[in-house]
């Protein structure tokens, strides 16, 4: 097993043995149930509510996991000094980083899959049979995972450089900024004055999480174009690569305590 795989598996094992995860997934499943109930209150929009609430829950819970586990991935090992024994093995620091990354991504994939299964179960309960258009929900879930991958890479970057608390704040900041990046581009240039150029640059360089939001399409059964799927995948991969490269640069120069 490669070094990256070994570290990844260990990271996954750590996440699984941490009981908080089960509570979060349970909470998400409860939300699915609630969505079914809410759908009953209204007329004719059960599916829409289940899909939109369900996707929001998956996204939100995934975000919590990505941030709270992600910021500790490196900093916890440094604080607890467990990293010493590991780095004394023939393991490069970037392998360590990549291993942590894949481990958390894998954890998220497993949890998201569980929640998505709950979502489909709710849909099945309400609709009594699934149609091909429901597969669009899977695309939406995939997009959520792409978004989470970017967040994990950011959390790792902060984990290598600063304390857990600050990392959480930075991650939250990036998430909020990344959600409004789309609007930044349409802000009126005449109102911004000298900031217009800065805003424009930022709006392209900051991660654009709106790219991954297709809840509307999924809820109304409108198919997502394949080009978009490809583009988003490339975007996420490229962005993660950049951030992880930066994290690797920081980690390789860091004097451990």
């Amino acid at each position, binding site marked *: 097993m490669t070094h990256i795989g070994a570290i990844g598996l*260990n990271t996954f094992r750590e996440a699984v043995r941490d009981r908080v995860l089960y509570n979060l997934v349970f909470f998400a499943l409860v939300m699915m149930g609630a969505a079914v109930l809410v759908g009953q209150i209204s007329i004719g929009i059960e599916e829409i509510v289940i899909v939109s609430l369900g996707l929001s829950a998956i996204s939100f819970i995934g975000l919590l996991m990505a941030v709270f586990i992600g910021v500790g991935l490196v900093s916890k090992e440094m604080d607890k*000094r467990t990293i*010493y*024994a*590991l780095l004394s093995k*023939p*393991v490069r620091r970037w392998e360590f980083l990549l291993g942590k990354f894949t481990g958390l991504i894998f954890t998220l994939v497993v949890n998201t899959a569980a929640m998505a299964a709950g979502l489909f179960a709710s849909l099945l309960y309400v609709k009594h049979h699934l149609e091909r258009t429901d597969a669009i929900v899977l695309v939406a879930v995939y997009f959520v995972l792409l978004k989470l991958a970017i967040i994990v890479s950011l959390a790792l970057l902060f984990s290598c450089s600063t304390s857990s608390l600050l990392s959480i704040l930075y991650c939250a900041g990036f998430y909020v900024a990344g959600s409004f990046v789309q609007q930044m581009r349409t802000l009126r240039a005449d109102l911004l004055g000298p900031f217009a150029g800065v805003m424009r640059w930022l709006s392209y360089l900051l991660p654009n999480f709106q790219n991954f939001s297709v809840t509307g399409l999924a809820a109304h059964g409108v198919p997502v174009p394949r080009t978009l799927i490809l583009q988003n995948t490339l975007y996420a991969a490229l962005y993660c690569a950049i951030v992880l490269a930066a994290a690797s640069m920081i980690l390789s*120069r860091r*004097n*451990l305590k």
Partner: protein
Amino acid sequence: MTVPAIETEKLTKEYPYGFLNLKKKISLENLTMQVDSGEVFGFLGPNGAGKSTTIKLLMGLIFPTSGTARLLGKPTSNIEMHRDIGYLPEQPYFYDYLTAAEVLDYFAKFYDLPAADRKDRVRRMLRKVGLETAGDIQLRKYSKGMLQRVGLAQAILHDPQLVILDEPMSGLDPVGRREVRDIILELKNAGKTILFSTHILSDAEMLCDRVGVIVSGRLQGVGAPGELVGVQTHKMEILFSLAGTQNTVRLLSHATRTGDRYRLELPEAELYPALDQLRDASAKILSVAQVKPSLEEYFMHLVSADRAQASAVEVSGK
């Protein structure tokens, strides 16, 4: 000439601190030393002297401000070389949600050992460090001594050529310490090179071929424990009691006296003449023993010399 196992040249580590990081704390200064293959080398020094810093520099966990270090002939930046090196960190702490067996297995993976081989080694190691019954308990339930043993196990499970141990005896009861000493001796007999740091001087005296003493970031002395202490001739010590008669024994003038009992220190050559004198004076001989110079004295001497220098520097206002 075989390559020395460890080699450093003017290895220096400074930590900037204070406002805008303008001040510097010198953790290690111009360390130049060598550990030969097959040696057991002890690193002695008071707390904060720089022993752990040196070891971390060797392991590539921190980076030198200047100077170089080589392990098994390769620079410390060469991570591949870690295959032949075992390391026990100071205050070892491992993933507390794993069991000892799982931790060892996990670490073993990084040496690219096949699964069956790993299982076998893990079992052997657990037995060697006395943890075979506790192998499946999560580390969060382990005592400090048990964690120390796990640490030792993970340092040697891949049969490394060079073993570096940072305070291997800390946290262990006398039984544990004895076991660790035995393991170190076993490794030495197998031809391994061992570097360990400690502030328990008797361990160093017993185990090491050579020791290096570090005080305040500087290497103050390197050599075999006997050499360092620098006493070429042995002295002898006679304890005796003598009632009453003051006149005869000229020797009494050199003795220290507590009530009826006297202690006399003299060179080995003068032992038997002195005993004759005492016999003639009907003194009761209580004991005759060799005065062993101790590493402790040498050590304390170095420490206090360093402290004196430090306060002289302070007083002079620099």
